């Protein structure tokens, strides 16, 4: 047990802190779910990349710094503490890139990673389908083999595709073997969102913006070069993404500690709801400490087949409920003013979707109960 940071970790943290203090825009950027805000966020990614802060954990050859996990968590803490903009590139750098590194060919890595790191190409995830929200294994969108052209033809519909309205490329699973059931016969595809046959239809959200979209596929051709991993092996390939989305990567504790700090500021200014404020702050701390444990485990043992996925579920249940509680307390403090548009209100509508996306909390609880606690599975039809 040792909670002290090394010299080089401290130096890394200080460098990040200094750069962010000098570069984070003083005013929040416009929402990334508007055309204007999307461009502003892309520009911010460019600045991050120029200073090598966009993908700190990647190897140097792909614009990274080869940062350790500990350094990555430190960077995230600094990033959110500095009030930095949201990451418009997060689907690519947090969800897709781990898979590209693990399952992609060198050619794919060289083709996709650099523009992902600089924010030039923004990626959208295309997971859910109208009849398969939490139940990814029941996907119905299809990929038909086209030997003549050396590739596949996609048909079907995806929904809840975040960033798709303005993004450039998408990634998702399609059923390439019509005979196979559930987890079998799925293939992982990458495709440009302006390809022939792709139609993107924005979904209006609670906050009135179009953070999600439906994506329709009508005879969309994808060459073999854009298949990630082996055909038919998509489920196994994708599961590491799902684990990542749910787990450590997307929700570093920095984000919640920073939100808890903002809540404390609000409380200092206006008073009231002391208990709830302290409680939220304590839970953000507990989450931070738990993450250090996970980081240590990952570093020392590496992700195990089930271990990290299930630990990711523990994370997900915790942060998504904390995020809601934290925003509710802020709105309670704001009182009648809470009804009026504010950053807290925006954050709240976003927090509300926390327990829903990236695998509903019901699914996460099933995973925790079955994989960690070893409780019996139910028949699932």
């Amino acid at each position, binding site marked *: 047990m040792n909670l002290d940071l090394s010299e080089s970790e401290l130096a890394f943290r200080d460098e990040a802190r200094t750069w962010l203090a000098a570069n984070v825009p003083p005013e929040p950027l416009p929402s990334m779910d508007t055309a204007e805000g999307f461009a502003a966020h892309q520009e911010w990614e460019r600045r991050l990349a120029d200073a090598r802060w966009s993908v700190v954990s990647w190897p140097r050859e792909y614009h990274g710094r080869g940062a350790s996990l500990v350094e990555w968590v430190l960077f995230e803490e600094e990033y959110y503490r500095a009030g930095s903009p949201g990451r418009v590139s997060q689907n690519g750098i947090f969800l897709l890139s781990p898979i590209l590194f693990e399952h992609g060919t060198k050619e794919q890595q060289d083709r996709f990673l650099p523009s992902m790191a600089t924010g030039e190409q923004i990626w959208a995830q295309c997971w*859910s389908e109208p*009849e*398969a*929200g*939490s*139940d990814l294994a*029941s996907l119905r969108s299809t990929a038909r083999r086209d030997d003549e052209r050396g590739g596949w033809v996609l048909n079907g519909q995806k*929904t*809840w595709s975040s960033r798709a309205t303005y993004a450039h490329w998408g990634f998702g699973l399609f059923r390439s073997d019509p005979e196979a059931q559930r987890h079998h016969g799925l293939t992982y595809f990458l495709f440009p969102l302006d390809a022939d046959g792709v139609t993107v239809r924005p*979904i*209006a*959200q*609670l906050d*009135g913006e179009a953070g*999600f979209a439906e994506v329709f596929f009508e005879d969309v051709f994808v060459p073999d070069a854009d298949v990630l991993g082996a055909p038919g092996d998509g489920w196994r390939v994708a599961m590491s993404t799902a684990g990542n989305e749910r787990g450590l990567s997307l929700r570093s504790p920095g984000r919640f500690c920073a939100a808890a700090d903002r809540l404390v500021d609000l409380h200092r200014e206006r008073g009231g709801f002391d208990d709830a404020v302290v409680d939220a702050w304590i839970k953000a701390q507990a989450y931070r400490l738990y993450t250090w444990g996970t980081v240590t485990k990952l570093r020392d043992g590496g992700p195990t087949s089930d271990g990290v996925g299930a630990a990711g579920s523990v994370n997900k249940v915790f942060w998504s409920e904390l995020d*809601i509680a934290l925003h509710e307390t802020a*709105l*309670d403090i704001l*009182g*009648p003013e*809470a*009804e*009026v*548009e504010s950053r807290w*209100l925006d954050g709240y*509508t976003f927090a*509300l*979707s926390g*327990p*829903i*996306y990236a695998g*509903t*909390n*019901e699914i996460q*609880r099933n995973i925790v109960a079955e994989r960690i606690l070893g409780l019996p599975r139910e028949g*699932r*039809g």
Partner: protein
Amino acid sequence: MEFALSEEQQELAATVRSLLAKRADPRVERYDAELWRTLCEQIGVASLAIPEEHGGFGASSFETSVVLEELGRHLVPSPLLSSVVTAEALLAGADDDAKARLLPRIAAGEVAALVDGDGPTLDGDLASIVVAVTDDGLFEVEGPETAWVPTMDQTIRLATVSGGTRTRIGDGPAARGRARLVGAVGCAALASGLAARALEMTVAYSRERVQFGRPIGSFQALKHRMADLLVLSEMSRSASWAASYAVATHAEDAEQLAHVAKSYCCDALSTIAGETIQLHGGIAITWEHDAHLVFKRAHALGRLFGSSREHRALVTL
């Protein structure tokens, strides 16, 4: 002792409900003036709590709450709450002349608003009758400046009201006390109606939505959560009825029951609305579905006429 709607009250509820089932649209801008006219002319909703001598129907504010419960259930924007609050404030505090002049207009369906304090006023920019209450008196306000305040829930309309010509028409504290009570139980009625509706929506959705080869409403974890919501919804309705009755009959325990109802019903609705979002999943956070309207209105009702916390603090133990 008859803790249930009378036949007349049941009929009133059923009439309003069937009209709203046909006509209610939660997404109209402001409120649907045509619908409001129908509610006033055919059913007389604005006149229920106003005595016959002032052009009213001469029932009580309990009957108004019966209507509010239905309006809550249908998520429909309506000026009824501000109307009954203003009417009751006038009945409690205004002089005879003002009552004789203003109440018949409210009974006939003119929109009325009551300004109480510095915060935004419910329906303040839609009202043709504006009354203000202060420690010093009750005032009729003519020609005020008003400005709509954009809020998360757009079905409960708030506006700032300032300026205009003020004419004293009666006693402030009496009017204010009554207005706050009626406002609190009115919110409780809206909340209890909406709670029932939200649960119905959620149950219906969970019976239809299939995941993992079965309707999600057959998963025990979700069933138990919905069972807990039913408990909250049932308790809400009885708390709301009791409080509205006590306020309508000026019973001794009216204040206590109003605090109980406002805090219980709004807290319960807040839980139910949150679960409505969660149990609907992704579809809940789209404009196309009503789930988010439930949530937003729940939030707004929780803050209108005093938060749960404030009402709990006012309970005399």
